[in-house]
Every structure is written in structure tokens, then in C-alpha cells.
């Protein structure tokens, strides 16, 4: 089992945390054998999940904590995102495609396209979003 942890504080005008996702969390995906297009999708899905935290859980407030852990087992890639913001409204969005002329509403479609397993829980004021992706079949 490989594991990587990152943590950062929110700043809606900053994108430094993108680098942590790209360089640290995607190490697991590369080691697991995902191709570059799949890695782009996984990275994008994590960015969308963090965008949701910044925009909706924290209402764009700066200096709020976000932590992401990544684990790769023999069968799956798993990321868990933790924040202390407002609870997510349930049920989680299905990820149905947005209307093509809609300005927004594509984030969950992107998340679910890369992570077929999505679960949410809240414990002691902490939001926990779990994203799972089976590993690619060996060549």
C-alpha cells in the first residue's frame, strides 16, 4: 500500500495547491499504470472537488484547511478529501451532463467520470469525501 498526504490552506485567488495535486497525488496514479489522459482526468476531478470545497464549503473564505490523502492498493486508487466547512447538501449530484449552453454545473460530471466510487460523510464537523477508482487492467 502506497500513501501520500497533502494539506494546504484555501486562497481563492491562488492555484499553488494545483501543483501539490499534480506532483504529489498523481505520483500514485502514475505508479499504478494509468495513462496520461487518465491522469489528466483524475487530476481534474480532484481539482473540481477542491473547487467545491473552496466555493461551497468555505464560501470562498481564505486560510481554511483542506487535507487530501491518497492511497493505492492492489485493486484501487483512493483519495480522501477533508475540510471543516459547511456540510455538503445531499444527495450528492448525479453528474448528469449540464446543458451545453449552461455557464456552469459540470464539476460533478467531471468528478464522476474519473471516479466511479464516490462517498460522503461528516463526522465531528469534518466533511470527508472519498473518491475511488479501480486500477487499470495489467497489459
Amino acid at each position, binding site marked *: 500500500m502506497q500513501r501520500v498526504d497533502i494539506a494546504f490552506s484555501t486562497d*481563492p*485567488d*491562488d*492555484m499553488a495547491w*494545483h501543483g501539490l495535486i499534480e506532483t504529489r497525488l498523481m505520483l500514485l496514479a502514475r505508479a499504478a499504470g494509468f495513462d*496520461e*489522459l487518465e491522469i*489528466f*482526468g483524475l*487530476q*481534474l476531478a480532484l*481539482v*473540481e472537488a477542491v*473547487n467545491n470545497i*473552496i*466555493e461551497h464549503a468555505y464560501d470562498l473564505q481564505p486560510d481554511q484547511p483542506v487535507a487530501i490523502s491518497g492511497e493505492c492498493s492492489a485493486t484501487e486508487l483512493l483519495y480522501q478529501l477533508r475540510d471543516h466547512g459547511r456540510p455538503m447538501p445531499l444527495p450528492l449530484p448525479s453528474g448528469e*451532463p*449540464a446543458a*451545453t*449552453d*449552461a*455557464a*456552469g*454545473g*459540470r*464539476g460533478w*460530471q*467531471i468528478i464522476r*467520470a474519473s471516479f466511479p466510487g464516490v462517498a460522503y460523510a461528516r463526522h465531528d464537523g469534518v466533511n470527508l469525501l472519498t473518491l475511488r477508482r479501480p486500477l487499470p487492467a495489467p497489459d
Partner: protein
Amino acid sequence: MTLKHRQENGIDVVTLPQRLVMANAGDARAQLKEIIQSGSGRVVVNLAETSFMDSSGLAVVVAGLQTARKLDGDLYLAQMSDSIRALFELTRLHTVFQIFDDETAAVRAFG
């Protein structure tokens, strides 16, 4: 962040940044809108330098398209990478935009 912009035969050619994401999308959206409204409404958006774009970035080009069409113009996309193209296909936006492999072809398509 300032969008790269030039005019060619009355067509606005705009190059998007290397990353177009939530942190800079609002700024990019405002600049693109101003460029389009100051011109003919005929716009080519070059994505050659854009290696990463999230749903906020997609919203920037959708808003640009809507602004251009309100002026009876259009917004064409050019030179997107395979990964950005996959994002457009996933979100079905490839059915909304005319997408060209190179900028010259996109400019020429305006006739």
C-alpha cells in the same frame, strides 16, 4: 494575468493562459468579454498554451461564445491539446464549438 490578444483581418485572436481555472477564470472571463464587445464579435480562441482547464475555464469560453453570438458573431477554438479536447468531449461542448487544428484555419473559416 493579461490575455494575449491581436487582430487579424478584423478577427480577434485571443490566446488563453497555460492554466485556466477557478483562481483566474473570473479575470479571464471579464477580459474576453471586453475584447469581444470591443470588436466585430468574430473571435478565435487559441488554446495552444493551455495545458490545464477546469469547469470554471470551460465557463469562460462558453460565456465568450454567448457574447460573440449576441453580436451576430461566433467564437472558434483552435489548437487544443488531446487532454483539453477530451474535456470538451466529456462535457459535450465539442458539439457547440467549431474546433480547428490550427489558428490559421480558424481565422480563414470566418471568410
